[in-house]
């Protein structure tokens, strides 16, 4: 516990040192107790170590930051599930938090728990006015900052950051009627909810109200995905495609499924070797070694894929019905894209080594 002479003194100290720069809700004992009603977990149980600080995050610690972010108790279970995915060492949170790149976790929630938790997938899903998305994403960010120590200019060496570092959490539309949901494609049932996390750049908008075929629309999306400034261009890895319902219907109405999208973009979101040499992050040693998995890096006309494989594309339908806009989210390739399902009982599993270290 921290003690201050007055509430105003506490507020000033928290906004100065424990915030993302925006006003926060003070985590008083009453508010934290109310937040903890959102989970059946033992508040003292430890979720894991958050790097680069390596501080331990208990369920209570997460609840404290959730209060500060303006989240609701019904969102705590989702927040802890997202953090469990981020604390998986394959995600390389230590790298995501400390890189000079603008990397930040993109969180996609697919399944009914998203909406039971107050998340949204309609108009403006990636922007303002989405209280649930913003609060859940912000709670995650505050955990990464306060428990993980990822403060700009201290251990977070991101040169410019991105607005997505404040909050980057979306729900998937389950009513678009195009394909099975992301969670179902990951092996879940329609009743289950999955969390997908990817180390990400900020989103890039794709506008297209002209394309009536999947090929024409996906050529537009491919062009956005292969932009030279993204690390994807030099390092084939993962990307997320957040399709608006209108764009999804252009593709689905032609009989294409999500695997078809991945195959098409794997083949068409490419840059020739000469172009990669001409601009961007061409590393004379590393880049040819990445390219050699796909073709001859000495052939200037060889077209290098942005995606490591057709399956490396994450596709989710989200956004309103009012137009043809989608978003491409490229990747920080030094961390893995992961997904996990939110367990029915709200429990979680951790590598034993992490728990034993914490409780030693």
């Amino acid at each position, binding site marked *: *516990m*921290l*003690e*201050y*002479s*007055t*509430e105003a*003194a*506490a507020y000033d100290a*928290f906004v100065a040192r*424990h915030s993302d720069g925006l006003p926060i809700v*003070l*985590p*008083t*004992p009453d508010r*934290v107790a109310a937040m903890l009603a959102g989970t059946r977990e033992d508040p003292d149980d430890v979720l894991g*170590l*958050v790097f680069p*600080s*390596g*501080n*331990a*995050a*208990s369920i*209570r*610690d997460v609840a*404290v*930051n959730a209060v*500060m972010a303006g989240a609701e108790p019904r969102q705590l279970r989702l927040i802890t599930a997202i953090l469990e995915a981020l604390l998986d060492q394959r995600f*390389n949170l*230590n*790298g995501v938090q400390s*890189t*000079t790149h603008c990397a930040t976790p993109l969180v996609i929630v697919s399944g009914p728990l998203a909406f039971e938790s107050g998340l949204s997938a309609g108009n403006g899903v990636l922007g303002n006015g989405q209280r649930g998305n913003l609060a859940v994403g912000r709670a995650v960010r*505050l955990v990464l900052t*306060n*428990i993980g120590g990822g403060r700009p200019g201290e251990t977070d060496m991101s040169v410019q950051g991105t607005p997505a570092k404040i909050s980057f959490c979306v729900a998937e539309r389950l009513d678009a009627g195009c394909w099975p949901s992301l969670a179902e494609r990951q092996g879940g049932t329609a009743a289950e909810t999955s969390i997908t996390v990817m180390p990400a750049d900020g989103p890039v908008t794709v506008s297209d109200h002209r394309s009536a075929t999947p090929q024409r629309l996906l050529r537009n999306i491919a062009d956005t995905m292969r932009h030279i400034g993204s690390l994807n261009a030099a390092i084939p890895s993962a990307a997320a495609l957040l399709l608006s319902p209108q764009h999804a219907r252009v593709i689905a109405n032609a009989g294409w499924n999500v695997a078809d999208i991945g195959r098409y973009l794997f083949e068409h979101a490419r840059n020739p070797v000469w172009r990669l040499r001409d601009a961007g992050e061409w*590393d004379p040693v590393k880049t040819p070694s990445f390219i050699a998995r796909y073709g001859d890096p000495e052939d200037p006309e060889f077209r290098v894929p942005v995606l490591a494989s057709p399956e490396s594309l994450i596709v989710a339908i989200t956004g309103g019905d009012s137009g043809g806009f989608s978003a491409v989210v490229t990747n*920080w390739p*030094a*961390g893995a894209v992961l997904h996990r399902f939110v367990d029915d009982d709200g429990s979680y599993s951790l590598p034993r080594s992490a728990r034993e*270290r*914490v409780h030693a």
Partner: protein
Amino acid sequence: MTFVVHDPRGTRIDPAPSLAPRPGSLAGLRLGVLDNGKEQANVLLGRAVELLAGDGLTPVFARKPSFAHVAPPEAIEALAMCDIVITGLGG
């Protein structure tokens, strides 16, 4: 009467890291060099080693395979045998 709130920083497991005392002289010390794998880090560190070589130091080099990941255990073990370690960002 005070106003009490929860600390949002979790629980520190390891003691807070601090810099080792600065050596008064480099004579006879073992020098470690951690190249983080970033572009041109070897250029910067190579020049630093050249300058330090005048003090008779023989460096132990360790390199991270990727600047985006933590140093592998064998690199840490090699550097742990040194008295002083220099590194740099590169880029």
